[in-house]
């Protein structure tokens, strides 16, 4: 148990041992940043504009540097892998779950991404249960909910004048041990349970997502994609703020004799996405790009790594400049699955 008057001291204790990321206010935006002082951390919040994925997968990252003095091709310098011990504090359960899927893609499959992995292994996630889900939240459509501890090392929950901290993983338990917090008392436990029940009551009714992958198997050639994509203006907003989107681009930037190989976030909504050097693009229109977005998140990923590419945080619903609502897209997909128009 951590009483709220001890919160600053708790964050300071973490900051002595770790680099601590937490939601901070920058102008009107709440965003995850490395804390420079414990008081900057904002835990009384609903969610950040952008997901915290950028801490582990930066939007722009230099992979190697190289030089080409005269006519030689040499001097390739690997960029040292960054692995400062890091705590991400106050992550919402939806975002904590997103790391499970990113881990499977970047660390646990056939290929390992050393850049992501080095950061991931040095990172602890302290999630904060979500007591005021927004009307756009649909985490509970994914067999999850605002108190889901999956993906976190420690789950924090509200208990009136205190937070209750519960170790979820072994490394979370080790971290917690070092902090010497008192055990929770019965009164606070009861209060926490009541708060959780209230939070669950605030959730709106949603249709479970499970099973949608089977319907999508038959929807590749459907006309529904054209219909869904019609109002999309093809910007990268939804993918950039998404906790799960992880497609990237790698380009060499060369200036005179020096260069660097840079990885940066890509977006399946862009006309340049999967554009081949020949000029050919297998996804030549917005309909096929939307098909890719939905298929990747709700068919390929569950089939390939066992998790959906969406956690139901609702960020894209709120930020889309034309209000193309992924929940409505899924509803439309379900209808199309029920009556496929295979052509």
């Amino acid at each position, binding site marked *: 148990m951590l009483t709220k008057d001890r919160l600053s001291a708790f964050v300071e204790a973490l900051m002595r041992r770790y680099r601590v990321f937490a939601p901070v206010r920058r102008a009107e935006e709440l965003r995850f940043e490395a804390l420079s002082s414990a008081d900057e951390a904002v835990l009384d919040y*609903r969610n950040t504009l952008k997901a915290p994925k950028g801490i582990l997968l930066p939007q722009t990252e230099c992979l190697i540097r190289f030089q080409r003095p005269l006519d030689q091709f040499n001097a390739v310098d690997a960029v040292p892998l960054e692995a400062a011990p890091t705590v991400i504090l106050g992550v919402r359960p939806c975002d904590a779950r997103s790391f499970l899927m990113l881990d499977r893609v970047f660390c646990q499959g056939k290929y390992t991404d050393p850049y992501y992995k080095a950061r991931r292994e040095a990172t602890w996630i302290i999630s904060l249960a979500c007591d005021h889900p927004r009307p756009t939240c649909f985490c509970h459509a994914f067999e999850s909910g605002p108190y889901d501890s999956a993906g976190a090392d420690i789950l924090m929950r509200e208990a009136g004048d205190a937070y209750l901290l519960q170790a979820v993983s072994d490394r979370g338990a080790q971290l917690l041990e070092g902090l010497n917090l008192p055990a929770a008392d019965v009164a606070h436990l009861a209060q926490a349970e009541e708060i959780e029940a209230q939070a669950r009551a605030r959730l709106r009714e949603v249709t479970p997502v499970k099973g949608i992958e089977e319907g999508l198997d038959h929807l590749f050639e459907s006309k529904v994609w054209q219909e869904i994509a019609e109002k999309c203006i093809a910007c990268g907003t939804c993918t950039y703020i998404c906790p799960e989107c992880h497609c990237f681009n790698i380009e060499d930037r060369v200036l005179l004799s020096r260069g660097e190989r840079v990885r940066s976030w890509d977006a399946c909504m862009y006309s340049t996405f999967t554009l081949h050097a020949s000029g050919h693009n297998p996804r030549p229109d917005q309909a096929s790009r939307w098909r890719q977005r939905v298929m990747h998140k709700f068919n390929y990923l569950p089939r390939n790594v066992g998790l959906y590419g969406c956690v139901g945080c609702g960020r894209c619903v709120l930020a889309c*400049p034309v209000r193309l609502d992924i929940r409505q897209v899924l509803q439309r997909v379900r209808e199309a699955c029920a009556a496929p128009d295979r052509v």
Partner: protein
Amino acid sequence: MNALPQTIRETIARWLSAGEIELFIGWEAGTIPLRATPAFIRKAEEVERLIWDATCENNLVNFLPKYKGKKVGLMVKGCDARAVVGLLQEGQMIRENLRIVGVSCPGVVDPRKVARRLGIPVEDLDEAQAEGDEVVANGQRFLLAEVIYDVCADCRQHNPNIYDVAMGEEVADPAGDPFAHVRAMEALSAEERWARFAGELQRCNLCYACRNACPLCYCNVCFADRTMPRWVYQSDRPEDVQFYQIMRTFHLAGRCVGCGACTRACPQGINLRLFLDKLRLDVQELYGYVAGTDPNAKPPLTTYREKEDYNDFVL
């Protein structure tokens, strides 16, 4: 939200059923508060879905270049109408192919301003709606005029200048300088101006929402998407973000109609309009030209006259 007046609905339905147009683009209710969503109507009976109120912020002219050569109808506000004129001037559209419902618009609501009044982040605005000249949000009432976008507060053309059918009560255009925000920026030192520019763009992720929401950004392949050569890299580094925004702004000099679609689309709330308005003011002062007002006028930056330059050595 308000359904369209019956006469307008009947007109649009007639255009569709008579084959005068194959598609009508309007607005319909969205799923989040204070933001309607674009609606694409192909059947006369679907006209019932269309609405008009202060939440209809999207400039639908942005979609027109996608339907080049097709017969399309759409709804335009005063500012959107200038974009139609801009596209006609640049030969992107044929007037005969368009059926336009022009709406007199008192301004559209800025959800960020409403959220600011309530002391909450805009994403936490759970319940809100526009009701006539008021906005009701989380139980509180605000005068619409106090929570419209800055671009609407500076608007001097509330009534469309091009349409087939007009809708709504005419709105009087206020007097006053619509470029006060630009003049305030101009009064700063070069260092201060750069700090302001770079400061705004610190939040830019290069998601291209500004470009993609802009009705005049219709290049088949934008310079930012070219890979051979690569003019701008796809990253959030300051040099890329600043270069992209400068290039986009300059490409819109004398073409930007000041509708503010870019600024409304920006997920980060960046004041892009400030930079674009600087060039609009320059073009107005240097050439006496306002983009989007006269379908027959030649945009100044696409014309060349001998002896026009004040330097002797330029022909």
